[in-house]
């Protein structure tokens, strides 16, 4: 295998980004995916950071969404208030695809990036929402990066930081949220999507060389895996884009 699993993940997500979309990115692999998408499938997509940078010229990969690298040659350098308003805005928000990550995900694509254990006195504390809850509440659709390890795909989150489909079906509508929600979960082993009606997660694809069991044993809830298909490995061109155009220093890889 001449690519890393993180490269595979970035490519799989990049392929999903549509031309002309506004791509909300966090740090790390989500940024790599958004950068790659501009070279692969979506040359007119716009990279957009919650810190207020729009369409940055990313000559080097930023190590945080506040990295000065996101401020260079932008269409606009605003602030948080502008950025989140653009996502909450009824006209622009629906054109945004958000890329998120989390510590835990449940069958309906809800995310936990706050705590493992009790909220008040957690076993393990994470960063917290940042803009994730906002993005998940506002935008047209989201793509979620997860690590495919035990304890991450759980029946019930320890803390629901960012809304997916809540309790499924029209759960978002009932809670007062807009349409939207996760479209795709990308891990280091597989890809998951959500049933159109029930909004429950199913296995949609698995990577070359990954056995089905490796996936299923990490998922703590009932999972439909009958629709799963093999996902093609990154092409040479895709890898070249990642390595030469997006992250030549290998900071994310």
């Amino acid at each position, binding site marked *: 295998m001449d690519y890393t699993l993180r490269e595979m993940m970035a490519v799989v997500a990049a392929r999903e980004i549509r031309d002309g979309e506004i791509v909300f990115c966090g*740090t790390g692999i989500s940024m790599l995916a958004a950068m790659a998408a501009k070279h692969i499938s979506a040359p007119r997509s716009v990279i957009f950071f919650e810190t207020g940078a729009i369409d940055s010229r990313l000559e080097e990969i930023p*190590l945080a969404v506040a990295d*000065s690298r996101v401020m*260079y040659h932008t269409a606009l350098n605003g602030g*948080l*208030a502008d950025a989140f308003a653009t996502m909450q805005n009824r006209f622009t928000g629906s054109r945004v695809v958000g890329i998120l990550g989390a510590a835990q995900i449940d069958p309906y694509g809800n995310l936990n990036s706050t705590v493992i254990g009790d909220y008040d006195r957690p076993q393990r504390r994470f960063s917290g929402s940042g803009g994730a809850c906002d993005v998940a509440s506002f935008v047209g659709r989201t793509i979620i990066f997860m690590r495919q390890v035990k304890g991450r795909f759980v029946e019930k989150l320890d803390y629901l930081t960012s809304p997916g489909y809540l309790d499924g079906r029209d759960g978002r509508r009932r809670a007062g949220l807009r349409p939207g929600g996760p479209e795709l979960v990308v891990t280091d082993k597989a890809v998951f999507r959500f049933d159109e009606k029930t909004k429950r997660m199913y296995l949609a694809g698995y990577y070359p060389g990954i056995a089905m069991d490796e996936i299923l044993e990490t998922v703590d809830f009932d999972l439909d895996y009958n629709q799963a298909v093999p996902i093609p490995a990154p092409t040479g061109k895709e890898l070249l884009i990642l390595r030469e155009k997006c992250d030549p220093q290998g900071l994310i890889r």
Partner: protein
Amino acid sequence: MSDPDKCMTMAEAVGRFIKPGCHLSIGGFTLNRNPMAAVYEIIRQRIDNLHLYAHSNGQGVDELIGAGCVRAIEIAYGGTGRFAPTCIRFRRAVESGQIHFEDYSNYHMTLRFMAGAMGVPFLPTVSGLGTDIIRKWGFSPEFREAESRLPREKLLVIDNPFRRQDDDPPKVVLLPAINPDVTILHVQKASHRGTVRISGLTFADVEQARAARHLIVSCEELVEEDDLRREPDGNQLPFFQVDAVVLQPYGAYPTACYGCYDYDPEYLNRYRQLAGDDDTFQDYLDEYVYGVENHEQLCRLVGPDRLRQIKAVKPQGYAAGLDRR
């Protein structure tokens, strides 16, 4: 133009405006434009029991918590990008029950500062409906009751009273305003009078500044008021909102200051290592914070070579090609 000169040293500014127990917010975001010179001075002056309001003010918040200055924090994100996906001393303080904390989203915190800046008791959003950010409150009822400056409710969900169309939001979340005693910013340029110009992203600095009773601004460069007024469209804060101006080159170090210098990967990597353990963190503080008298001395301690490496280039505004592993 005859306003009193607001210039003072960081020691004076911190000593005069930041008191134990004070409600504080700092500018910047994760690893950029944190007012680190002020943060280190607060630690050196051993000002404690601070009530911090933070969105994603990574490095500065983590060091204040680590040094024991913070009693309670309202926060959206405790992380410093790739250098600490979760801020290390923040994580430890929460896990060990050393601080009171309460979670919001970044937009929630931004709206809370905006509300304070605008002089309204709350601002609405549709963010967070159905989540534990709304259901789970971090501060206990007793803590809220005792802290008379906090709102009684973390936030409130109400029916949208203007709903008419099906696609109008049925509910909204109201976020209560924040009015810190003091906000501290680090910026590229300010005048003696206090007019402020920030280059690059402004994050939530302007809202944080306007929400506060007092505002301390440290700057890379002290410029003539007239210089700033030649292009007033680029200025963010008028002089009458500023209480203290501190000329503080490298005042955001080890975080970045767009157009001036980058973050220092070496410092931040070392910080991560040392912060991971209580003893080595104490060593870190002893050497880098208590062991120096002021920020100039810290800069001398890390040395001119390091500062040269992180110097920003034009037109990028960061240190192109910097080794950031």
